[in-house]
């Protein structure tokens, strides 16, 4: 009897401490994440300029305003093109570099450090640097191209090139991040599997398809999830290189949300746009989980 009382008291203090330790973190989460998420959802059904009281407009932000918003569709298209360029190319480039660095050669650490260098530098600094390199009249890239008799271009000032250029900068910045994850995945593949396969007469391609790729799917999965999240939310890069221009050629969805919220003070509409991004991101992540779900192989862990 007394023992169960003691137990009860113990679990009482245990849960008291449980709540106590979680309290500050939970408070922060409540005020700055949970409440804002629901507020944002409510706001998306209003028309609000921050000054006058919000006006309830029901679904019209979605069904009327967004549908007829040309800029929204353009920014959506640009976001998809940006994602389709940066995600596959970024992952393939990182994978190739990781494969090369997984060989037993000298100087691996140095090479890895070089490729990884841009990862920790702010996107703003990187944009400032690349704007100078890609400058139409004075940029070093156009000069190098002229040395080999190639015609330079207005990489960031020409509508036909700008989206490709910012995609390239994005790949350049993030390839080191993906490479590090994939390299760790490759290092985790036991070498005896390759030896056994080689003895069985499997060639390089076969070893790649049957051993390497299946065993690093967890790393590929992680890298692809992170890439999708990053590319849907690209902002700093666009803000500091092209501001969405020239024309609308690099206006991406995040930039359009920002402009609506903090330039036009359309808080309601901006929230509606933000929720659309959220829902799309959620859907794509679910698709990825489904795609990788039956392929992820954790057996070797």
């Amino acid at each position, binding site marked *: 009897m007394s023992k169960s009382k003691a137990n009860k008291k113990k679990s009482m203090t245990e849960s008291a401490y*449980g709540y106590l330790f979680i309290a500050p973190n939970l408070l922060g989460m409540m005020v700055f994440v949970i409440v804002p*998420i629901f507020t944002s959802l409510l706001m998306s059904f209003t028309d609000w300029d921050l000054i006058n009281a919000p006006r309830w407009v029901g679904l019209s932000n979605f069904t009327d305003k967004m549908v007829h918003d040309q800029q929204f569709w353009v920014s959506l298209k640009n976001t998809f093109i940006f994602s389709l360029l940066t995600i596959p190319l970024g992952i393939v480039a990182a994978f190739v570099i990781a494969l090369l*660095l997984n060989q037993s050669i000298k*100087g691996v650490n140095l090479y890895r450090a070089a490729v990884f260098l841009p990862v920790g530098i702010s996107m703003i*600094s990187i944009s400032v640097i690349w704007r100078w390199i890609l400058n139409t009249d004075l940029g070093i890239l156009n000069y190098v191209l002229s040395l080999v008799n190639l015609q330079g271009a207005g990489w960031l000032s020409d509508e036909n090139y700008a989206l490709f250029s910012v995609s390239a900068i994005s790949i350049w910045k993030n390839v080191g991040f993906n490479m590090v994850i994939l390299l760790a995945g490759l290092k985790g593949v036991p070498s005896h599997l390759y030896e056994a396969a080689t003895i069985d007469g499997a060639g390089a391609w076969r070893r790649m398809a049957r051993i390497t790729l299946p065993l690093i799917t967890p790393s590929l999965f992680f890298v692809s999830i992170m890439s999708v999240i990053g590319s849907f939310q690209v902002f700093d890069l666009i803000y500091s290189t092209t501001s969405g221009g020239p024309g609308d050629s690099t206006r991406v969805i995040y930039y359009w949300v920002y402009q609506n919220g903090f330039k036009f003070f359309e808080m309601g509409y901006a929230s509606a746009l933000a929720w659309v991004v959220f829902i799309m991101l959620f859907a794509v992540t679910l698709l990825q989980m489904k795609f990788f779900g039956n392929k992820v192989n954790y057996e070797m862990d």
Partner: protein
Amino acid sequence: MTSYTTSTRVKTKSFLIHAVMIVCCILFIFPFLWMALTSFKSPQEIFQWPPRMFPEEWSWRNYQEVLTAVPLLRMLLNSLFVAVAVTAGTLLFSSLAAYSFARLRFKGKDLLFSMYLGTMMVPLMVTLIPTFVIMRKLGMVDTYYALIIPGFFGNAFGTFLLRQFFMTIPNQLDEAARIDGCGYFGIYMRILMPLMKPALASLFIFTFMGVWNDFLWPLVVIQTESVKTITLGLASFQGLYTTKYHLLMAAAMISVLPVMVAYISSQRYFIEGITLTGLKG
């Protein structure tokens, strides 16, 4: 004969790898080098065609001009202050919450934890506007409070990451400590935290770099020059001096250099942190 051909094949292969990787290195290092070289050139040299690799005369003038135009050093200190404050808060409050999630039993724990996981999917843009409105209501817009408080209590990612690490530490350690009369806080502080050093180091670097490089939030809440972080400061400097590349490169140098020094010296931890997170998360 066979061994001879194999060894030449190995040599050619490693030669090719080195060749590719050296080209890669140039591709990744040259932009930073070009920034550094340009920052020492005179304005006339910027317009010179063909461009020259090295400055005719190395001069600190651009740096002097940049620093008198914009208080970049003050902004560096702002970034340092904000990043240290947010990181300290995150490490403390996320680790406490993570310990609670990993070790203590209380009602509603699973529900709270799935709520934490759920929020990790939500893009920043969704919470940005309401958080801005809250900050405005509290009268904190355009102050350090706006930069520090939203991140100070830790975040779902940090709590989740640390919880995963707490779970890998055997429970017997806690039990032994409890028999020896150690309380819950004592177990957290004296037994588990010392074992969490690698995880805490990763979270430290992630949070610090995240806050240091953050741009969107400072852009939204800060207008006053003297409160701006370096990232925001550089962006607004670029807005004012759009095409004065000699000044822009000097400003970029000032913003990049401290990070690069810190980063090269701690890169090992950074890379380990990313791999750990990639594998655990």
